[in-house]
């Protein structure tokens, strides 16, 4: 399914930092991307690269203080979320944008029946009766593949398994028919078989409801199976973006390439050595002046340490933030020749 071109969410140069005792942590540094109607956008990166903070920014879920916006705009259907009053943002949260958290074990309230937790979204909304709300909750529970809904409706989270709890989380995110769901590592704590079930469920929901999904994960396998477009984050910045195919088969940033080489795939030969990315991610208290990945990069040039790289647009969708694409950069396997521009899909 090809996504329509209409943007539902747009982030423009978002900067987000936290005040801590150690100083200011610049978690998100100048991030821009858009989410289109009906598409699944993946955000990949290691822990600490700012992907979760970015997602939480969209709903202003980060505690403020210590967090604060340093600039930028977040446009949801043309309205700037950063300029909304608390009352307005509460309507968006859970109403127009659903959020699925990483750990279903800790993000459900252990003292509330799951039915009540699904219905909670409707609290304080006029015009719906109790019965309608319950029917709605039961219907959504069926939709996410929960059997025996009447019984489950009255159960507490501890009576459910991990996969079932994650389904409840998705039900909560879906219940008010949002146009966008943000999933923050929804399958990390689940087994592969359950993970496959949840991923299939998300794909199915997209087909049925046309919901856009932002999928945050560190697992390239999840990205490959699910996403239409992908952005790769590193050190609080977007380093590469493009369609899933472009990213996997025509990788243009050394970090993305490093990530792909460092994972064991099913067809990795026995004797073949994995190529880890040496070193550790940058310290975000004082992020490097130049490219955040320079210290770990095999292709690092002098300019990389001195100046932040520009964004190079390779195709309509594919862009990378790396000096290697500059016309003065030496030729190597990462450099995409300009004449190739027309050929690539």
């Amino acid at each position, binding site marked *: 399914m090809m996504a329509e071109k209409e943007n539902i969410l747009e982030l423009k140069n978002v900067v987000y930092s936290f005040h801590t005792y150690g100083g200011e942590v610049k978690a998100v540094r100048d991030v821009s991307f858009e989410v289109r109607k009906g598409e699944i956008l993946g955000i990949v990166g290691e*822990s600490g690269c700012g992907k979760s903070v970015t997602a939480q920014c969209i709903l202003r879920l980060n505690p403020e203080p210590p967090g604060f916006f340093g600039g930028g705009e977040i446009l949801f259907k043309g309205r700037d979320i950063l300029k909304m009053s608390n009352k307005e943002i509460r309507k968006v949260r859970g109403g127009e944008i659903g959020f699925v958290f990483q750990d279903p074990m800790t993000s459900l309230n252990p003292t509330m029946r799951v039915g009540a937790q699904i219905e909670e979204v409707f609290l304080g909304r006029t015009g719906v009766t109790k019965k309608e709300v319950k029917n709605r909750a039961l219907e959504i529970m069926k939709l996410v593949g929960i059997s025996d809904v009447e019984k489950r409706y009255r159960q507490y989270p501890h009576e459910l398994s991990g996969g079932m709890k994650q389904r409840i989380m998705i039900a909560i995110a879906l219940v008010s028919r949002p146009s966008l769901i943000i999933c923050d590592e929804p399958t990390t704590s689940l087994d592969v078989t359950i*993970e496959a079930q949840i*991923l299939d469920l998300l794909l199915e929901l997209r087909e049925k409801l046309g919901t856009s999904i932002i999928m945050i994960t560190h697992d390239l396998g999840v990205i490959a199976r699910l996403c239409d477009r992908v952005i790769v984050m590193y050190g609080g910045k977007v380093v590469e973006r493009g369609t899933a*195919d472009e990213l996997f088969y025509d990788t243009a940033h050394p970090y993305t390439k490093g990530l792909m080489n460092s994972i064991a795939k099913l067809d*990795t030969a026995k004797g073949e050595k994995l190529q880890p990315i040496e070193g550790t991610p940058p310290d975000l208290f004082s992020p490097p002046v130049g490219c955040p990945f320079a210290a770990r990069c095999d292709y690092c040039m002098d300019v990389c340490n001195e100046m932040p790289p520009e964004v190079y647009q390779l195709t309509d969708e594919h862009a990378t933030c790396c000096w290697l694409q500059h016309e003065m950069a030496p030729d190597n396997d990462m450099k995409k020749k300009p004449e190739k521009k027309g050929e690539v899909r």
Partner: protein
Amino acid sequence: MANETKQPLVQVKELCKYFHVSRTAELKAVDGVSFDIYKGETVSLVGESGCGKSTTGRCMIRLYEPTKGQVIYDGKDITKLSKEEQKAFCKKVQMIFQNPYASLNPRMTVKEIVGEGLKQHGMSREEVDKKVEALLETVGLNKDHMSRFPHEFSGGQRQRIGIARALSVDPEFIICDEPISALDVSIQAQVINMLKHLQETMGLTYLFIAHDLSVVKYISDRVVVMYLGTLVETAETEELYANPAHPYTKALLSAIPEADPKKAKANERIPIKGEIPSPINPKNCCRFAERCQYATDRCFSEMPKLREVAPGHMAACHLLDK
């Protein structure tokens, strides 16, 4: 690599570990598991969470006392060791734990953590210092790190400290209980490469407990698949991934998220319905029957026995009786 003529280093025979949950309920975490590990090879134990793979690992090092069955190390039953033999056994078998944030004592320095075992086995302080320094170098840390505390390190570095601790007494056999699942992708490869390198240089034998099947394929010589306390299939790695015989293994393999969009989207998955059932008072039948799409009446009444599908390839499934 496995060598049929050689005596296995570790033999697990009909190992059972039951936990009493209440007067009537018994949790059968491991129920009649048998496999062998030969010297110098890597055997992986895979399965979903709650299938008893960690319990098996812990029984093999006597962190748990097995309910029934035997673990034979180098020809000796480890549950019947004398005090002295037990001490020698501890020196030969070590464990690397899953969570590097919880398995290091936050109040001890790296030197104390790594050197603790050495002191137990009667090394002098100077010798310990020297040994710890050398060990840290082997795992890619340096001697400046000796006086630091665990909280000063990143996850990958902590796991290295855990590995240095396991290596300190020069073991022959290391049980790695999900050593990389708490680490970041780019760091995982560093640790895997190091484990492989150590195996080559020191001739170690590994039992690798994991749920990431891509990593398992990469690292191991043989794979043991467990489901709800029972062994469902075991074979050489290549054989298992190419010709899985048990429906559970097939489904498990097809569920691996592959990092290749074309393959991942084209890949026909075999769905497994539902979730892993409770191991408390399990029925005496095929444990996978409830979730198996091929299940027949026989599967619900009789426990399948392990049978040989191909040389060295064993599976426990009634469907293979023909």
